[in-house]
């Protein structure tokens, strides 16, 4: 089975995931097309982060199927490293490597994992750091950067691997309100350039602005979904209405 760009780049079919007796995903299905930007919203503990972590194999699943570019993620035969070269991920807590400078953080994976030429990677890394507006911060250590700056380094670090899909797991949740914007601007630029993005977010205004499609999850299922133009105004399910009522 070969994947062609007209098929979903990420496809979930009846995904179930439990932590012990606690079932956090109770049959989740949806497709993401290449270049699409989707946002997953929902109350805390509804399984949003778990869902996104299953897509690059950080969490395993009990039933169902997740494919990325036609490849089954949870196939035991699958080379997870090959999958992760295609899927970038950015975390809530940035998770930069504290013993490396910003530039080294960005360069590490392409040099060590992709075995690319160091000079070429450095050129690309500097360009990426400039793209996320961090010129002059190349030699700073993560401890010397603000949360928003660290998060932009983390985005550049993921982009350096030239992924086909980017996963964002509540990337602004740990940031100060005034630095949230600089990170969101970076993500919006990515989305506008056609990067396939999947975001778990609490930023409703941002979701409304950038998303092609919004999924609302509650207690392990997708309750409702739709394009932002209708999702925020014509929510039908009472749970969605209640959630939107609380935050909008």
């Amino acid at each position, binding site marked *: 089975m070969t994947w062609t760009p007209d098929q979903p780049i990420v496809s979930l079919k009846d995904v179930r995931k439990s*932590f012990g007796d*606690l079932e956090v995903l109770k049959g989740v299905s949806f497709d993401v097309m290449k270049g699409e930007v989707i946002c997953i919203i929902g109350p805390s*503990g509804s399984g949003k982060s778990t869902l996104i972590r299953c897509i*690059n194999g*950080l969490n395993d699943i009990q039933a169902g199927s997740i494919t990325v570019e036609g490849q089954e993620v949870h196939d035991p035969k699958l080379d*997870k*490293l*090959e999958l*992760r*070269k295609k*899927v*970038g*991920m950015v*975390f809530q*807590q940035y*998770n*930069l*490597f*504290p*013993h490396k400078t910003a530039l080294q953080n960005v360069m*590490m*994976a392409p040099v*060590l*994992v992709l075995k690319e030429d160091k000079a070429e990677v450095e050129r690309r890394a500097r360009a990426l750091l400039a793209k996320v507006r961090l010129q002059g911060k190349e030699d700073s250590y993560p*401890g010397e950067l603000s949360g928003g700056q660290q998060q932009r380094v*983390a985005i550049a*670090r*993921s982009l350096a*691997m030239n992924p086909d899909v980017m996963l964002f797991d509540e990337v602004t949740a740990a940031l100060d309100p005034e630095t949230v914007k600089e990170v969101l601007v970076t993500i919006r630029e990515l989305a506008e350039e056609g990067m396939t993005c999947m975001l778990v977010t609490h930023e409703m205004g941002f979701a409304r602005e950038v998303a092609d499609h919004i999924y609302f999850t509650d207690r392990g299922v997708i309750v409702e979904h739709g394009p932002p133009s209708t999702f925020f105004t014509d929510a039908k399910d009472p749970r969605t209405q209640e959630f939107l009522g609380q935050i909008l």
Partner: protein
Amino acid sequence: MRRVAGVNAPGRTDLPVLKPYDVKAVTPDGYIFTRWVATLPWWTPALVVLAALLWPLIASAQSGYTVYDAFDALWRWSPFLLWSGFFFNVLISVFAMAIGTVFGAALGLGQISPNRVLRLAAWFFTQLFRNSPWLVILFIVLLAFPFQVKVFGVTIPIPDWMKGVIGLSLPIMANISEVVRGAVQSVPTAQWEAAESLAFSRRQILWQIILPQCYKRMLPPWMNWYAILTMATPLCTLLGIEEVITLSRQAMEAEDNHPELLVPFYGFILILFFAYCYPIARFTMRLEKKYAVKL
């Protein structure tokens, strides 16, 4: 007892609950000895000398051999005790530390291996040597090891002091193993996840990302164990190794075993060990403080 929902009382939520934990219970203070040494004022040895001076003044009133004779004897023997005795102890501690560190690091990495058999074996040897009395280990090594081995027809003798080094390196190995395991596990799992997401292999994550973050936090406990090891080297006298205790006993015998010799000679050894370990202890505690905050 306080009732905590989800811990010792029914949960109020069906979501996973992070159980509260007692920080003191999970982090035993491995620095008790070093901390004690480091808190001593630097003039502590002077007190020892003073005590050494006063004690024989009272004791030696009736015998012809005075405290001055005893200190005279010590003066004559001290270069020998220092260069042939104490420096041999230092040599033993350096060798034992080097061997213990290399094998302890390997054992520690074994303890975090994804291979279950390797992990259990490494855990077993760590616990075995960590919880055995050092002296017992020393005697077993002394008695169990041959005095020479033949490798490819070449006979290599194993002198007793080498056995002492091996015997002391075993408990050090086990404790360094725990230091390595603890340091690696103290790195947040988020670092592993971030590296995994960037398609690093397990080996690359460990060597390129996790371990480089560990060296700093491993340094204070490593130095702590070195100080403990140095203090333990006099145990080698029980194996007949000619280190500082053995030599000073021989020296006192040569000086006709006057009881007045005991306090000056052993006091001298005490000062030697103090002078060597005190800076290490102070430095360790400084590093410990410095790195403890930055986790």
